[in-house]
């Protein structure tokens, strides 16, 4: 099979180019295993900021809007307010974890199902949020469909304050701590979709959402 040949030819050429005839010494092998075990973090910029304040600031810089409410029960009213201000229809789809909220009391029609191509508003939780860059982190699973944060024109993400970490490296450490293997999809979202492909002019809403709205709890 040519595929097997290609594999051995490519790896053979790589090894031939290496010193020591391409063999891995015991010390090198130990260093490789240590890297996978310890996950060393490279030098980072100075971060003289407070986690939550930085997250809010960076969300703004990436063109996400931010609202802050005391607890999960306040989310429907916050969403209703946000939609009314922008004259968006009070109809949305949400992740299962948010299905039990009293949406109807806030005048909203919210279905718990993955978004389809014609849904206009998707409401999700997040796995973690990253302060350094104003980033939302999603892990795919049957209960956290990726389509809901991707297809609608407006994406609303509910973020518990204690799920905001400082850096992407911190997010990896937390993911491993919580004993999660990489799921099918890890998605980082930092603000609405954008492009500058025509004359270098920035346009919001290329393929993904036009609007990303973050509701911080607690």
């Amino acid at each position: 099979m040519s595929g097997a040949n290609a594999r051995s030819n490519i790896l053979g050429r790589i090894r031939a180019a290496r010193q020591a005839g391409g063999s891995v010494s015991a010390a090198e092998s130990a260093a490789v295993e240590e890297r996978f075990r310890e996950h060393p973090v490279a030098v980072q910029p100075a971060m003289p900021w407070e986690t939550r304040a930085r997250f809010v600031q960076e969300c703004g810089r990436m063109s996400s809007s931010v609202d802050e409410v005391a607890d999960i029960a306040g989310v429907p009213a916050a969403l209703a307010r946000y939609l009314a201000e922008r004259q968006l229809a009070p109809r949305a789809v949400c992740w299962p974890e948010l299905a039990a909220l009293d949406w109807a009391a806030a005048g909203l029609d919210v279905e718990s199902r993955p978004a389809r191509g014609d849904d206009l508003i998707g409401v999700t939780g997040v796995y973690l949020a990253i302060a350094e860059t104003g980033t939302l982190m999603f892990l795919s699973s049957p209960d956290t469909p990726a389509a809901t944060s991707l297809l609608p024109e407006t994406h609303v993400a509910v973020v518990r304050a204690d799920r905001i970490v400082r850096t992407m490296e911190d997010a990896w450490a937390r993911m491993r701590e919580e004993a999660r293997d990489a799921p099918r999809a890890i998605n980082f979202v930092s603000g609405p979709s954008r492009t500058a492909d025509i004359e270098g002019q920035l346009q919001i809403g290329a393929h993904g959402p036009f609007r990303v709205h973050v509701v911080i709890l607690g």
Partner: protein
Amino acid sequence: MTFQSTESGATAARPAQARPAPLFKQRAHDSLTDAKVQRAMRNFNLAGARARAVAEVDNFEELRTAAAAIRDRSLAMLDVWLERFEREATRRGTHVHWAETHEDINRIVVEIARRNAVRKVIKSKSMVSEESHLNQALEAAGLQVVETDLGEYIIQLSGETPSHIIAPAIHKTRDDVADLFHEHHGTPRKTEISELTMEARKFLREHFLSADMGISGSNFLIAETGSTFIVTNEGNGRMTTTMPRVHVAITGIEKVLPTLEDAAAMMRVLARSATGQTISNYISINTGPKRPGDTDGPEENHVIIVDAGRSRLLGTDMQEALRCIRCGACMNHCPVYQNIGGHAYGWVYPGPIGSVLTPNYIGLEKAVDLPNAATLCNQCGVVCPVKIPLPDLMRKLREKQVARGLRPWQERFGLKVWAWAAARPGVYAWLTRLGARLGRRMGGGEAAIHHLPGNGWTEGRDMPAPQGRTFRELYAARKGRT
């Protein structure tokens, strides 16, 4: 140099082997005299955005040094990381393929498409697939191919190739795009950039929802988890890896990183260097196919690891070029690229990195002009996020050209004559004296020569005319006085 647009249907694919870079000087001249290209290039100021983003962190130099070290660590044991990637990816259900050549890439993708009865393919940007002319091969196999990065979509409609690695249609104006959309979409002609973007969104959304297969590149491969790592601002990378039932990622052997932490460090320099962002809007890290119960994601996930000339650079004085993370900063800061645009470079990668990669990937003899298409001002070397010494590499390629006798005979003959004279001080002094007198006469009493015969150099500027005596004459006179 064109690939077929989706509208023109299947045609016989051109052989996928690397085509020779066409005459660089002619192409550069065409760009310089094309008012539209010149106007479009002025729209472009990613250099300013980068400078602002870099100034926001206290230690960008340290971040660059760390990023270069991470890339060097990858390249030093590429086989070890690739085998780990393969093992971890396979364990999680990804099919890993190895492609030695561009033909291998196209054959593997066509086979996957056939096996899955694929009819429509959507693509997010993959520069490796530009190397192999994958779109032509897929169309020859009867498949519809739609590029989804807005810039790539525009040039697909116009039948062109990318002129920049992250802004592929930077040479087009809004009027060009308006004409293309009007013609290909059959919609009323729009003039505002926002309207054009919305129209592309609408048409491409249909394609996203109806495609059977998504093809993407991969900015990095993550060895520890067997994942692809795809960075976009538009979200087309997410769409391509989420919606169709088959996903194929194509990337070079050099793109593997050991850990997710390494990727985090690379993102800090990649986004700042490319667009002046602190992070790109979307990062999609995909690991295997849809899991039990998942409502989205592909049923089949494939990764094609491509050599196509890369392993030849390992262990040579060109290895540093493999650190490249395709941010585009070198071209954004290159005075030559800024004036002639990407198409003049004749192959997939333009700008300083193209001047190094193209001769290495397709052959020094097929790209004789490229290592010389630079002033060696080192703007590229200073901004490169992984510290590739681009001017040094171009200089080494020039040396190789001389060693292999690839320079034009006039240049070789001229240098021989010069070497002969320079080794004979009396002859050299006589020739310089003759040259100075002749130059003064050509100046016709003025301080400048307006026209040098047989040479385009004076078309846009004057040549200073030699004045008075030569250095040697003055030196001899002064020595006589003391």
